[in-house]
C-alpha cells in the first residue's frame, strides 16, 4: 500500500514517541545527565500528546494492515501517553536530584525503557491485526522486565522482575498458540477478517474457540485476572513505585483496550462457553481480589489486589458488550488510571530508592495527616475514588459499569460487584483511617523534599483535583468518551 501524508499524521504519536526513545538513547550515549534525559522524555511525550490533535483530524484511517487509528485508538493513546507522562514525573522525583545522593546506579535508562514501553502501548491500542497485537504487547512488556528489576540492589525488585518475566513469557506463549489456532481455522490474521470468517461459518468450530480461549488466557495474564493473577502482588511490591504505577495504568489500559476491540469485533465470544468462562473469571476476580486485599499490611500489595478486583469490574462492562458498554470501559479506565496514578504517586513521594525498600508498609502512613496534610488529602481522595464514593471520579466510573451491567441484565455479575465493593470498602477505609491516626512516637520514614518531589507533588495535587472535578462534573469526560467509539464495528 501507498503511505501518504495522512498516514504519517495518523501515526504521529507513535512516531514521536519512538523518536524520543532514540533521541534519549543517543543523549545517554553522548553524556549522562539526569535532568536532560528527564527534560527530553517529557518534551517528547508532550509533543506526542499534542500530535493527537492533528491525528484526530484524519481518523479513522488504516495505517498498514496492522494498525487502525480511529477515535477509539486516539482516546486510549491519550490515556497511555498521559499516564506515562505522570509516571515519568514520578520517576524523576523517585530517583532523586544530583548524583551522589539518591539512586545509586544509572538513572537515565529507566526513562528509555518507559518510553519504549509506552510506544508498545500505542501500537497495542491501535492494533487491528494479530501481528500488530503481538508486536505491541511484546514491546510493552519486554522493557517492563527491566523496569521492574531496576532497583537491582533490592532483592525483592530483582525477584519481581524475574517472576514477571517468566510468567509474562508463559502468557505470550499462550497468546501465540491461540493466534496460531485461530489462523489455522480462519486463514486470516486481521480482527475483522477472523470475525467475518467465523461469522460466515455460523457456529465457530472447537478449534477457533480454543484458540480464542488461549488468547484470552494470554491477555488475562497481563491484566492479572483470577486465576492468572498470582504474580501481581509480588511484582507490585517489588517494582519501584513509579514503575508499579506504570504497570497498573498505562500497561493495563493498553491491554484492556485491545481486548475490548477484539471482543467487540469477534463474534465467537458473544455467546457460548467462552462468554460464561469470562463471567466466571470476572466474578472470581472481583471476589478474590477484594478478599485477598482485606488483610494486607502493605500498601502496594493492597493496591495490587485491588487492581485485580477493578479489572473484574471492568469485565462486567466488557461482557455486557452492548449499549453503554464501550463507553463504560472508557470512563472506568480513565477514572481508574487517574486514581492509581494518585495512589502510587503518594507512595513514590514517600519513598527513596537508596534506603532499600519503598515506603509501602501501612504503618509508615500512620498519622501522615499531621506531617504531610496535602499528600494525605491526595491519598484520601484516591482511596475514596477506588471505593467509588460520590464526589470522586471513581464513583462515576463505577456508576457507568453498573449502568452497563443493568442494561444488559447481568445480575450475577452485578451481585458480585455489589458484594465485592462492600468488601473493598473495608480495606480502603482502613488505609484512610490509618492516615489520620495519631500515634505516640511515630516512626518516620519519609523522603526528604526537594524540587523534583515538589514537581511530583504538584502533579499529584492536580490529579486529586481532577479526580474531584470529574466526580462533581463528569460531563466533559463523558462527551469525550462518547466520541471515542469503536469505528471497526460500524464498518
Amino acid at each position, binding site marked *: 500500500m501507498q503511505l501518504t501524508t495522512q498516514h504519517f499524521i495518523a501515526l504521529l504519536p507513535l512516531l514521536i514517541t519512538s523518536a524520543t526513545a532514540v533521541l534519549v538513547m543517543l543523549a545517554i550515549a553522548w553524556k549522562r545527565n539526569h535532568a536532560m534525559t528527564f527534560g527530553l522524555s517529557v518534551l517528547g511525550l508532550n509533543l506526542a500528546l499534542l500530535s493527537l490533535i492533528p491525528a484526530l483530524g484524519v481518523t479513522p484511517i488504516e495505517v498498514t494492515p496492522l494498525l487502525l487509528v480511529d477515535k477509539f485508538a486516539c482516546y486510549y493513546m491519550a490515556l497511555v501517553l498521559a499516564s506515562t507522562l505522570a509516571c515519568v514525573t514520578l520517576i524523576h522525583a523517585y530517583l532523586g536530584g544530583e548524583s551522589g545522593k539518591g539512586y545509586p546506579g544509572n538513572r537515565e535508562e529507566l526513562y528509555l525503557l518507559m518510553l519504549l514501553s509506552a510506544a508498545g502501548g500505542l501500537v497495542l491500542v491501535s492494533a487491528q491485526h494479530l501481528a500488530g497485537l503481538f508486536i505491541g504487547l511484546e514491546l510493552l512488556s519486554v522493557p517492563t522486565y527491566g523496569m521492574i528489576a531496576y532497583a537491582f540492589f533490592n532483592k525483592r525488585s530483582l525477584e519481581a522482575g524475574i517472576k514477571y518475566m517468566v510468567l509474562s513469557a508463559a502468557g505470550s506463549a499462550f497468546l501465540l498458540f491461540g493466534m496460531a489456532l485461530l489462523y489455522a481455522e480462519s486463514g486470516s490474521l486481521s480482527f475483522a477478517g477472523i470475525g467475518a470468517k467465523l461469522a460466515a461459518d455460523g457456529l465457530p468450530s472447537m478449534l477457533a474457540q480454543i484458540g480464542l480461549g488461549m488468547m484470552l488466557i494470554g491477555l488475562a495474564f497481563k491484566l492479572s485476572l483470577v486465576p492468572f493473577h498470582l504474580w501481581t502482588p509480588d511484582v507490585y511490591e517489588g517494582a519501584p513505585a513509579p514503575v508499579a504505577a506504570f504497570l497498573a495504568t498505562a500497561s493495563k489500559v493498553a491491554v484492556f483496550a485491545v481486548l475490548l476491540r477484539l471482543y467487540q469485533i469477534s463474534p465467537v465470544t458473544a455467546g457460548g462457553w467462552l462468554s460464561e468462562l469470562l463471567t466466571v473469571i470476572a466474578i472470581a476476580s472481583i471476589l478474590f481480589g477484594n478478599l485477598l486485599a482485606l488483610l494486607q499490611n502493605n500498601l502496594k500489595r493492597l493496591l495490587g489486589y485491588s487492581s485485580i478486583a477493578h479489572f473484574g469490574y471492568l469485565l462486567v462492562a466488557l461482557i455486557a458488550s452492548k449499549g453503554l458498554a464501550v463507553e463504560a470501559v472508557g470512563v472506568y479506565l480513565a477514572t481508574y488510571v487517574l486514581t492509581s496514578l494518585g495512589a502510587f504517586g503518594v507512595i513514590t513521594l514517600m519513598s527513596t530508592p537508596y534506603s532499600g525498600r519503598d515506603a509501602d508498609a501501612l504503618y509508615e502512613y500512620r498519622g501522615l495527616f499531621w506531617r504531610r496534610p496535602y499528600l494525605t488529602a491526595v491519598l484520601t481522595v484516591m482511596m475514596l475514588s477506588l*471505593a467509588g*464514593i460520590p464526589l470522586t471520579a471513581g*464513583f462515576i466510573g463505577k456508576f457507568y459499569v453498573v449502568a452497563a451491567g443493568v*442494561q444488559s441484565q447481568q445480575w450475577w455479575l452485578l451481585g458480585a460487584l*455489589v*458484594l465485592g465493593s462492600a468488601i473493598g*470498602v473495608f480495606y480502603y477505609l482502613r488505609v484512610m483511617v490509618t492516615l*489520620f491516626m495519631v500515634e505516640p512516637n511515630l516512626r518516620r520514614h519519609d523522603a526528604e523534599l526537594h524540587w523534583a518531589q515538589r514537581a511530583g507533588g504538584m502533579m499529584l495535587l492536580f490529579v486529586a483535583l481532577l479526580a474531584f472535578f470529574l466526580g462533581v462534573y463528569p460531563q466533559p469526560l*463523558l462527551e469525550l468518551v462518547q466520541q471515542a467509539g469503536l469505528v471497526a464495528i460500524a464498518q
Partner: protein
Amino acid sequence: MILPWLILIPFIGGLLCWQLERFGNTLPRWIALLTMGLLFGLGLWLWATGDFSLAPAPGADPVWAAEFQLQWIERLGISVHLALDGLSVLMISLTGLLGVLSVLCSWNEIQNRVGFFHLNLMWILGGVVGVFLAVDLFLFFFFWEMMLVPMFFLIALWGHSGSDGKTRIYAATKFFIFTQASGLVMLVAILGLVFVHFDQTGVLTFNYADLLKTKMAAGTEYILMLGFFIAFAVKFPVVPFHSWLPDAHAQAPTAGSVDLAGILLKTAAYGLMRFALPLFPNASAEFAPIAQWLGVFAIIYGALLSFAQTDIKRLVAFSSVSHMGFVLIAIYSASEIALQGAVVQMMAHGLSAAALFILCGQLYERVHTRDMREMGGIWARMPWLPAVSLFFAAAALGLPGTGNFVGEFLILVGSFQSAPWVTVLAATGLVFGSVYSLIMIHRAYFGPAKADTALPGLKPRELSMVLGLAVLLILLGVYPQPVLDTSAASMQGVQQWLGSALNQPVLAR
C-alpha cells in the same frame, strides 16, 4: 434559588471551619454555629412563607412549593433538580435545629482537630439536606452515599475508644459497609428503573416526575421495589439489618449520635415516602404486610434488647430501633392519619432521641462511664440532669403531652382499621417502652450511690439545649397542628398512591 443555598451553606461553612482552624479552636465553633443557625433560620423561613397545600400526588405531575433545576450530566439525562414540599421543609427544619444542637453539644467535648471535626459535621448535614431536596434519582443517590464519608470520619476519629481501643474504627467501618453495600443495591434498582423507562420511551432520564409514569411488569416492579427497600431498611433500621446501629451509636461522639438518631434515620423514612411508595405503588401494596410485620418485630425486639443493655447509649440506640418500627408500620398502612402520625413521630423522635443522646454525653463528661452498673444514685449527686432525663425518658415511653404520644397515638389509630393485629402487637411496644425507659432512670439515677461526691451541675449552655428541646417536645405534644398542616398534602399523596394500589385487587375480585 434558595434551594441550592440550603445545600451549599453547610458545605461552605464546613470548609471555612476547616481553614480557619489555624486561628484557634473557638472560631470554627462559632462559624459552625452561625452556619447551622442560618440553615435553621432559612428552614423556618421557608416553612413560614411557603405554600404547602400542594404536593406530589398520583395522576398528575408533581407540584412543589419551590423548585430548582440545572443541567448537570446531559449525556445521561441527569440534572441538579431540587424541590421542596411540606415533608421536606419539616425535615430540613429538624436538620437545622439538630445541627445547631450538635455544634453546641460538642463545644467542650471536642478538643482536638476542631476545624476538621466541624467540616465533617457540616458536610453530613449538607448531604442530609441534599437527600431531603433531591428529586433526581441520581442526585438523591449521590447525596445518600456522600453523607456516609464524613459520618465515618466522625465516628472513627472522634469516637469513644470503647473497650479495647479498636472498636470505634470497627463501628465506623461496619456502619459504612452496611450502608454503602445497601446503597449499591439501590443504585442497581435505580438504574433498572431508568432502563425500563428508557425501553418504553427512548428517553434516558433520572427525573422523578418522569420516572413516576413508568409502567412496569409486576415482577420487575417488585424486584426494583425490594432494591430500594433494602437500602432504606438498613438505614431505618429494620431488624435483620440493624446491627450497625448500636455499635455506631455506642462509639460515636455525642454530635454524631444526635445526627445519626435525629436525622440520618429519618432519611430512610423520607426515602420510603418520597421514592419507594410512589414509584412502586403496586409492589409496595403487595409488600405492605411484610413490612408492617417487620415493623412490629422491630418494635418488640428493639424494646427487649434495650432493656438488656448496660451501656446507656446502646440502650437509647436500641430504643430508636423500636421507635422507628412505628414509623415503618405507619408508612405501609395506607392511612392518612397514620402517615401524619409518622411525620409527628419522626419529628418527636428526632427531638427526644437527640435530647437523650445529649444527656448521655453530658453524663459521660461528668462520670466518665456509660456503664449503668457504674452509675447509680446520681440523682442525689447532681442537680437538673437527672430530672431532665426523667422527662425525656417519659417522653420516649409516650407520655401524653409529649410529641411522641401524639405520633404513636395517630399511628396506632390510623393503622388499626387496615391491620388490627399489627396494631395490637405494636401497642405492646408502648408497654415495653415504659419498662426500659424506667429501668434506665432507675439504674442510672436511683439505687445505691457508688460515690457520694457531688458532681458539677449543668452549665447554662447545656441546660438551655435540653430545656429548649423539652419545650419543643411539649409544644409538639400539645399543639401538633402546624406540623400536621404542613405535611398534610404530601401525606395525602402518599396515601393515595398506596391506597389506590391496595384497593385494586379488591375491586378486581
